[in-house]
């Protein structure tokens, strides 16, 4: 019964069909089967946030979801939201504000930040920190990341600091 299981899902708008072992998690499926290596694997137990992707519109930890659980689901990864231009302004703000150094946490940070800005267009710094509390960055000290998200929020809502 540990044989592979057939799944069909949408990844960044494209239909994907695959046969996967039950133990394969979504992060490894994206990285190793689909070569979408923008989703990073850090802690593999849901603490670091580097593997954050969207499943049916909601951000989730892809290391805590089995690939078999994504049957019929719509997955969006950092590659999808980058290519579509959805987060182009957020990415520019990260670059301008030096909100990344090594870049390992950045895909997860961007997914979490975009999720916040969709739910709450004008978050204060406290709210930004709370929403990112599940995403570790070991380089920046977070200040610049919060700056980048705050300035994107201002720009999107036509406000000035």
């Amino acid at each position, binding site marked *: *019964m*540990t044989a592979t*299981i057939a799944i069909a899902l949408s990844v960044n708008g494209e239909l994907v069909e695959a046969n996967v*072992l*039950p*133990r394969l*998690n979504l992060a*490894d499926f994206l990285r190793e089967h689909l070569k979408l290596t923008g989703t990073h694997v850090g802690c*593999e*137990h*849901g603490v670091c*946030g580097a593997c*954050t992707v969207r*499943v049916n519109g*909601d*951000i*989730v*930890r892809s*290391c*805590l*979801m*089995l690939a*078999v*659980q994504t*049957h019929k689901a719509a997955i969006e990864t950092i590659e999808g939201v980058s290519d579509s231009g959805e987060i182009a302004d957020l990415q520019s703000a990260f670059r301008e504000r030096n909100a990344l150094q090594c870049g390992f946490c950045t895909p997860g940070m961007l997914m*979490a930040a975009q*999720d*916040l800005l969709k739910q709450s267009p004008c978050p204060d710094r406290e709210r930004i*920190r*709370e*929403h990112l*509390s*599940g*995403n570790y960055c070991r380089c920046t000290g977070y200040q610049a990341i919060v700056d980048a998200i705050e300035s994107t929020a201002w720009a999107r809502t036509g406000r000035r600091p």
Partner: protein
Amino acid sequence: MKAAAFAYVRATSVENALELLSVHGEAAKLLSGGQSLVPAMNLRLVAPELIVDIGELTELRGVAVKGEVLTIGALTRHADLLKSREIAAHAPLLKDAVAHVAHPAIRNRGTIGGSLAHADPASELPACMLTLGATIIARGPGGERRIAANEFFVGIYETTLTPQELLVAVELPVNPKNSTHFFHEFARRHGDYAIVGLAAQASIKDGRFADLRLGFFAVGDRPLLAKSASKLVDVAITPAVLSEAASALDDELDPLEDQQATAAMRRHLAKVLLTRCVSLLLARSDLRAGASA
């Protein structure tokens, strides 16, 4: 790390899930949101032979109010509880508590049934169930079983559920009129495991507690509904009364020591929470002395 190999089956109905559990017993594990089970599997703390995925049993997801009873389906996600108008209106304590459960990406997957069945002593929702006087509803081969929350949690990651049972829902009495609540936890960062937490609900009449329920968590091997709360009901609260209740609370606690805190620190923080809770609910800042942590 990666999870050990296991077999997987997607349950098609509650009955189907129960059949699978009765065949496979302890070799099987139910997968709901997976936010506790999957990390434990990835860390190889558990290695079930069979995963029974109940994620598609949508009949177990949702919140309903009928008369004086609020029913929450086991597959209701933490994010659903945060957004639910019924929860905000009838169990506002739960809404406050869920905001402290992990992080948004975890709350989008984690479920109330999973959290309760997992029974982590540092978890918020089990303590809320004690405070709110919840009834936990489980189904097994013999039919439905209704378990009072204060009899459900029996140890670290241990409940009275049998391997053949599935937690299907919880029932809460709707919030009594004029009741008020308090929720706070100490944690290193927002969303981390609580070092100590308190979920309290009270009704207040003429500046006194007519009722007070104090559900502490991360103070022992299971959540605690403090009996010492009774020392604060129907009396004029003075610093002396409060201090007596705090020392009675201390006798009830059996905190564990781990890398986050010593047992003594947990005892201290539990008293701080008690004092803050009482002074805040009664709007008595004079009782706050010594409540800083």
